[in-house]
């Protein structure tokens, strides 16, 4: 009630919240992350433009990373083509068809995990919708973000999409076998990365020739080892609350 004059009118109250607008997504992402960590699974959010070579990178990963149980979900607006390609490459995969949604959110990933023997995996790839804008802002519960950036996309791509690139733990510069045919300077790509990422890390690869794939595998193994170490140091049960 109005306390100024006691007239009985409702009072205007400022309610201070200061909470993230994405708090709901963050909670589901934390739940996904807890699952991945409980089982010691390296979960990676693989992002990049349409056609940047995300699927080809994962296909190549299946060829070189033997003895590791891989799984994937692959998001696309309208087809399950990429999930089928990954299946053919030997990575058990599910498609997430997002319809008009330009990104994955934590709930879509959570739903896709159900009915998937994901807890028997060592590494899990979440291939996001091809898009350099929207996927960056949704936490999915991943351990790290990997961005595929192809050499045909232009040297200044990181400067044009700082929100996406600053979230990358690793940028995989793809299709490097095409460099002799292009006017592209890979050092300039790396300079652009240093202007959006305080600690830029990039690996130059070609899924076609195999260039750089050993360095990519070494990065994967390093990240996987850190997930395993964290699990060993923090053994705990998981209460499934959802």
């Amino acid at each position, binding site marked *: 009630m109005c306390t100024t004059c006691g007239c009985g009118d*409702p009072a205007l109250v400022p309610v201070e*919240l*200061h909470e993230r607008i994405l708090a709901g997504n963050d909670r589901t992402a934390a739940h996904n992350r807890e699952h991945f960590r409980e089982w010691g699974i390296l979960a990676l959010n693989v992002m990049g433009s349409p056609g940047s070579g995300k699927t080809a990178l994962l296909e190549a990963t299946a060829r070189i990373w033997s003895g590791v149980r891989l799984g994937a979900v692959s998001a696309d607006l309208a087809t399950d083509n990429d999930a089928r390609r990954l299946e053919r490459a030997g990575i058990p995969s599910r498609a997430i068809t997002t319809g008009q949604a330009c990104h994955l959110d934590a709930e879509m990933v959570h739903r896709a995990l159900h009915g998937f023997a994901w807890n028997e995996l060592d590494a899990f790839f979440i291939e996001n919708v091809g898009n350099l804008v929207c996927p960056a802002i949704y936490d999915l519960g991943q351990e790290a973000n990997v961005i595929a950036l192809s050499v045909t996309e232009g040297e200044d791509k990181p400067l044009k999409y700082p929100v996406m690139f600053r979230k990358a733990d690793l940028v995989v510069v793809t299709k490097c076998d095409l460099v002799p045919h292009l006017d592209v300077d890979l050092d300039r790509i790396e300079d652009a990365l240093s202007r959006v990422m305080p600690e830029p890390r990039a690996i130059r690869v070609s899924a076609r020739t195999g260039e750089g794939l050993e360095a990519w595998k070494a990065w994967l193994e390093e990240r996987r080892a850190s997930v395993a170490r964290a699990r060993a140091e923090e053994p705990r049960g998981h209460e499934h609350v959802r």
Partner: protein
Amino acid sequence: MHEYSLVMSLVQRVEEEARARQAVAVHAVKVSVGQLAGVEPELFRTAYETFREGTVCERAALEISTWPASWTCPGCGRTFALGEVLRCGACDRPAKVDARSEALLLDAIDMEVP
């Protein structure tokens, strides 16, 4: 166009809060958007204009505070703007992003309670 799904979450959250406090009206919704949040304030406003119809936010003004992208060297406190190499040459350390640059916050709601 994730601004639409963000506004849906925002309006739902405001409805929750208004219900919990038995508000009779909501006058203003205040949000903060950093330049690195991945949200275009004008698109956000357009999405809000579309979605608020028929909700508790129907007559509530949307106030957006925006914050530029900035980073700070944890050693010497030097600041960096978008476009600069994000490493302090003097301290040889990577700069740290300032929290406000990536803010995407529901700051406050002005509501009328009985």
